[in-house]
C-alpha cells in the first residue's frame, strides 16, 4: 500500500521539471519585444535625421552594414580567432590549476594553511594593475593575454571548489566514517562530488571574467584580437564597428557561459532536483 503510494509520488516528481521548463509566450514577452523594436527604431530615426551624430551612436542599419563588411572582407576572422585562442588557453590553464590545487588543499589541509595567505594576496591585487608588468615579462603578444586570463579566472575556480568541498554535508561524512572510508576515499567519493555544484558556479563566473580580461588587455596593447579591433575602431571614430564588436563580445560571453552550464547539466542534472 505504502509502496504503491510512493511509486506514484516518484512519477509525479519525474515529470514536474519538464512541465515547469516549458515556458509559455506571455504578454510580458510581447511587451518586451515591442520595447526592443521601439528602441532600435528610435536609434535609427535619431541617427538618420542627424539629431545625434553618428560618431556617438550608430543606427541599427549601419551596424548591420559594418558587420557584413568586416565579416566578408576578412577583417574580423583573424582577430576573432586570436581572442578565442587566448581566452580558451588561459581558461583551460585556470581550470586545470584551480581544480588540481583545490584537490590538493582538500587532501592536505596543511598545504592550504601554508598557501592560503599567498593566494589571497595575489587574488587581492587588481589584475588590471599588473598588466604593465605582464607585458614587460611576456611581451604584447599571445602569452601576456593568456597569463592575464589565467589570473582573472583561476581564483574563482579554486576558491569555489575548496569552499564547496568544505561545505560537504556532515551527514555524508558520518556515513563515510561508519563504513570506514579512509581520507582518500572520503575526499574523492564524498567531498569532491559535494563540491561539484559550487565548482561549476566558479567555472561559470570565471568564463565571464576570462573574456573581460582578454578584451581589456587587447585594448591596452596588442597586435590583434577583438579588443585591439575595438581600440582601432575608436581611433577611427567608427561607432558602427564599436557597437558591432561590443555585441559580438557579449554574444561570445553568453555562449561561453552557456557551454559551461550545459556541461554542468550533463554532469549533475541526474541527481539534482533543481533544473538550472
Amino acid at each position, binding site marked *: 500500500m505504502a509502496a504503491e*503510494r510512493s511509486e506514484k509520488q516518484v512519477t509525479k516528481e519525474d515529470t514536474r521539471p519538464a512541465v515547469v521548463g516549458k515556458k509559455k509566450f506571455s504578454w510580458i514577452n510581447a511587451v518586451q519585444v515591442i520595447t526592443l523594436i521601439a528602441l532600435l527604431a528610435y536609434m535609427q530615426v535619431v541617427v538618420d535625421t542627424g539629431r545625434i551624430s553618428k560618431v556617438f551612436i550608430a543606427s541599427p542599419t549601419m551596424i548591420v552594414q559594418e558587420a557584413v563588411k568586416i565579416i566578408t572582407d576578412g577583417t574580423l576572422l583573424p582577430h576573432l580567432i586570436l581572442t578565442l585562442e587566448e581566452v580558451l588557453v588561459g581558461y583551460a590553464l585556470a581550470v586545470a590549476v584551480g581544480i588540481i590545487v583545490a584537490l590538493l588543499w582538500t587532501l592536505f589541509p596543511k598545504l592550504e594553511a601554508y598557501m592560503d595567505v599567498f593566494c589571497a594576496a595575489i587574488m587581492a591585487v587588481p589584475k588590471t594593475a599588473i598588466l604593465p608588468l605582464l607585458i614587460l615579462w611576456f611581451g604584447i603578444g599571445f602569452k601576456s593575454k593568456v597569463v592575464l586570463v589565467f589570473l582573472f579566472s583561476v581564483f574563482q575556480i579554486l576558491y569555489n571548489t575548496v569552499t564547496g568541498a568544505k561545505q560537504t554535508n556532515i551527514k555524508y561524512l558520518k556515513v563515510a566514517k561508519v563504513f570506514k572510508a579512509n581520507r582518500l576515499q572520503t575526499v574523492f567519493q564524498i567531498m569532491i562530488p559535494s563540491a561539484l555544484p559550487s565548482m561549476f558556479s566558479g567555472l561559470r563566473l570565471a568564463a565571464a571574467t576570462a573574456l573581460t580580461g582578454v578584451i581589456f588587455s587587447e585594448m591596452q596593447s596588442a597586435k590583434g584580437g577583438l579588443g585591439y579591433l575595438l581600440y582601432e575602431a575608436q581611433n577611427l571614430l567608427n561607432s558602427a564597428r564599436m557597437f558591432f564588436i561590443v555585441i559580438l563580445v557579449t554574444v561570445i560571453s553568453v555562449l561561453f557561459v552557456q557551454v559551461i552550464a550545459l556541461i554542468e547539466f550533463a554532469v549533475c542534472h541526474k541527481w539534482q532536483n533543481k533544473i538550472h
Partner: protein
Amino acid sequence: MPTIKAKNIEKYYQSTDGEQVHALKDISLTVEDGEFVAIVGPSGCGKSTFLEIVAGLLPHDGGEVYLDDQLITETSREIGVVFQDASLFPWRTIKRNIAYGMELAKVPKEEQEKRLTHYIKMMNLEGFENKYPAQLSGGMKQRAGIARTLAMNPKVILMDEPFSAVDHLTRCTLQEELIKIHELEKKTILFVTHDINEAVFLADRVILLSPRPSVIQEEYQIKLPYPRHRDDEYLSKVAAMIMADISRGRKTDEDIEYFI
C-alpha cells in the same frame, strides 16, 4: 550474551554561549544478543548523542563501550548505523548507495550483486535501483538507507530516529518491516526515538532517559511476542506509564533548563 555493553558513559559539551553542558551522566546499558532495545526521552536529552558514542562517531569523556567484550574506540563494520533521514549520497543511484559499504569493505563483486538483489527485493526497491535519491520519496530513501546497512551484515544495528522524517502510513509499514528483519536476521537493534508508541510497539525493552544531565530514569520490559497489534491494551498501558514517568521526571528536575 551481551553484544553491546556501555559502561559509565559521561559526555560534556560546550554550548554555543561557552557554558559546559553535562549531557550524559554515568549511563550504563547492556544490550543482549538479538535484543531490540529502544531509547526514549524528552527532546534534547542526549539519546542521539548516546547512540553516536556507541557507534564510535563521537568521542566521550568517561566510560567505555564494548562490542562482544572488545573495547570500541572508533567506528566498526560490525556496528551498522541508520540515520534519521537516510543520508544517501545524492550523486549515487539507489543501487550504488546500497553498495557503498560493500565497496569500501572490498566485498567480491558477485557477492555484492547477490546481496544487492536480496536486500533490494527485501526492502521493496525493485525497479528503483537506477534512480537517484532525489527521485524517491522519504520512505523509499529510508528503505534504501536500511538496505545499505543490512548489506554489510553487521552484528548490531543502531537506528537514530529512522522513521521520524516519513509520513505516518509509511512509518507504520516501515515499523512492521523492521520487526520482520529483526526476527528474520536476528539482529541486535538499538533504536532511538521520541515516539513512545513506536518504542513500545517495536522493542523488547524500552530505556527512558531523563532530561539533562541524562541518566537512565527507568527501564521497561515489553513482554509481548511479535506480531504485535498497535491497539494492544498492554502496549497502551506501558506507553501511558512511560508518559507519566516522563512528566514525573520533569517535575522533580524543575530547576534544570532543558531547552537547547
